[in-house]
């Protein structure tokens, strides 16, 4: 359905994506990465907005750039907000449907159905400038889905939505992804880029993690979590005698390395963080050490990205 082989995209001397190879079949896929990681560039390559500097991009077996036959099977919802002020959602989605090759009544009906599906049925004739960001986001989504594409590509689609709207649209997109496309005689493909892990997880999507333009991991959410779990985690202990504490915990509870930050912080890398934390507590009681703070390793997405990068580069914790 969609394959990138050794794809690199340069903007002058700036690297957009770097030597990415990935193959995605039908179903839901999440592209996860922090802002500036190269997600939008990757989506630009897939949706035929950009040409790779090196490597090969194929969508439905063909090059997507300037290829009308491929583009008419792609729906794309970009991250940027719509600043078209005076048009109504009906005008806007109708316009996009007409640009996809539909005309007359068929175009109007498709636009109305798509707007209804995203829950904008009541606001179709209000100018976009009077709608909330979440409603404009729905209008963008309707524009991407109205021509019934086989591949739906969404860039930060749930940005700016309130929790209820987010829940609704996640459900809508998930249902779209598992529904069968009668025209293509097969399931559809959904590619969602986000910097929020829980958004992608909610879509039950396979994951590809991108950072610094490089694909650093791919698999299911569980596989990526296992990969992360298997990496050494850092425990940060602030106490009155970090060097003495290091001597007492080294070689126990899976401690793999230690380092010191200033006079009162010990950082221990371990694959068994819970066991190590218990060991620190026991030692502190037994040796009457003053422990002021014990912090587990960074479990945020940024932390996970950082660890995946270190794994990707073959560096330990």
């Amino acid at each position, binding site marked *: 359905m969609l394959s990138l082989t050794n794809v690199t995209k340069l903007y002058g001397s700036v690297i957009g994506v770097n030597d990415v190879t990935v193959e995605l079949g039908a179903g839901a896929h999440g592209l996860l990465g922090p802002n500036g990681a190269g997600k939008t*560039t990757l989506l*630009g390559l897939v949706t035929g907005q950009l040409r790779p500097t090196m490597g090969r991009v194929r969508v*439905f077996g*063909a090059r997507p750039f300037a290829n009308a036959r491929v583009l008419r*099977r792609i729906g794309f919802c970009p991250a940027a907000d719509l600043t*078209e002020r005076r048009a109504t959602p009906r*005008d806007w989605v109708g316009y996009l449907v007409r640009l996809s090759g*539909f005309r007359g009544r068929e175009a109007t009906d498709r636009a109305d159905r798509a707007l209804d599906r995203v829950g904008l049925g009541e606001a179709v004739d209000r100018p976009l400038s009077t709608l909330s960001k979440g409603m404009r986001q729905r209008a*963008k989504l309707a524009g991407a889905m109205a021509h019934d594409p086989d591949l739906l590509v969404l860039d930060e689609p749930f940005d700016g939505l309130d929790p209820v709207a987010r829940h609704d649209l996640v459900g809508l997109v998930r249902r779209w992804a598992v529904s069968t496309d009668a025209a293509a005689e097969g399931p559809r493909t959904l590619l969602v880029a986000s910097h929020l892990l829980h958004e992608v997880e909610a879509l039950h999507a396979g994951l590809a993690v991108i950072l610094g333009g490089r694909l650093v991991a791919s698999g299911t959410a569980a596989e990526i979590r296992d990969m992360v779990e298997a990496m050494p985690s850092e425990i940060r202990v602030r106490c009155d005698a970090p060097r003495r504490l290091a001597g007492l915990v080294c070689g126990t509870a899976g401690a793999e390395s230690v380092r010191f930050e200033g006079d009162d912080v010990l950082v221990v890398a371990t694959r068994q963080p819970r066991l190590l934390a218990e060991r620190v507590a026991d030692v502190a009681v037994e040796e009457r050490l003053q422990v002021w703070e014990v912090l587990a390793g960074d479990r945020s997405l940024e932390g996970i990205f950082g660890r995946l990068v270190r794994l990707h580069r073959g560096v330990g914790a």
Partner: protein
Amino acid sequence: MNVPQADRFDASPWAAAVGSVLAVAMFQIRRLLSWQRLLLAGLGVVFPAAVMMAVRRTARTGLDDDLAVLMLYALVPEAVCMLGLLVTMCPAVADELERGTWVHVAVRPGGRRALLLGTYLAAVAWTGAVALLAAFLALAIMQVPQPLHLAGIFAGLVALSTLGRAALFSLPAVIMPKRALVASVAAALVVEYLAGFLPAVVNQATVSLRLRSLLVAWMQWRQRLPPEMQMLVDPQPPWVQIAAVAVLSVVLVTVAAVILEFRQFPPSDEI
């Protein structure tokens, strides 16, 4: 999975392409129907008539009819058309990039082409309508002999001016969208008003030479032109001038469409 030969779209590729171009043109005209743009258009309509009235009133011995026509030519097919196209055709791509709508259009089949051609149509229709109204209003006020004949001449000149100049401005619009206005003014000055007045082969590729030649031919001024002015017009018949503007327009718009088809606009937040 390869791209299937048959798909769900009823329309033939040509019909779909024409439909897309018309969709863009309609959308652009709806955008132009704001009070700011209508006010600007109103000024464009009134301005030549106001100038002609002012000149007629200040001229001590009355304004010669030929001179009045020449002035109206400078004001409408030249000034009004140029200014109108600068605000409608030049931002063809820049406006889309600024509004965040470029990406929506660029991912549609033939969307880039449709955007350029649709904007071209809208710019020609809008500017042409403003310029025609301006010419008709000025002619009505000027009280020249044979106003209907002159109205026909100016309708032809306005049509050719908008078609040719919009095509000329389509190039800067796609080559340097963010500097399109400056580049278009430069192109107008260098191509139309410098090269266009050079008595050399280079002026054959300008719209201004063709329009001047048509004005001279249709007003039957050729025999009365002083010898030094003969070099500034093309002696060939009007159909050659019309065909030249048509060919020039098609070539310029085609080149612009090809350039736009292969242009890439990097997502700014990634750089």
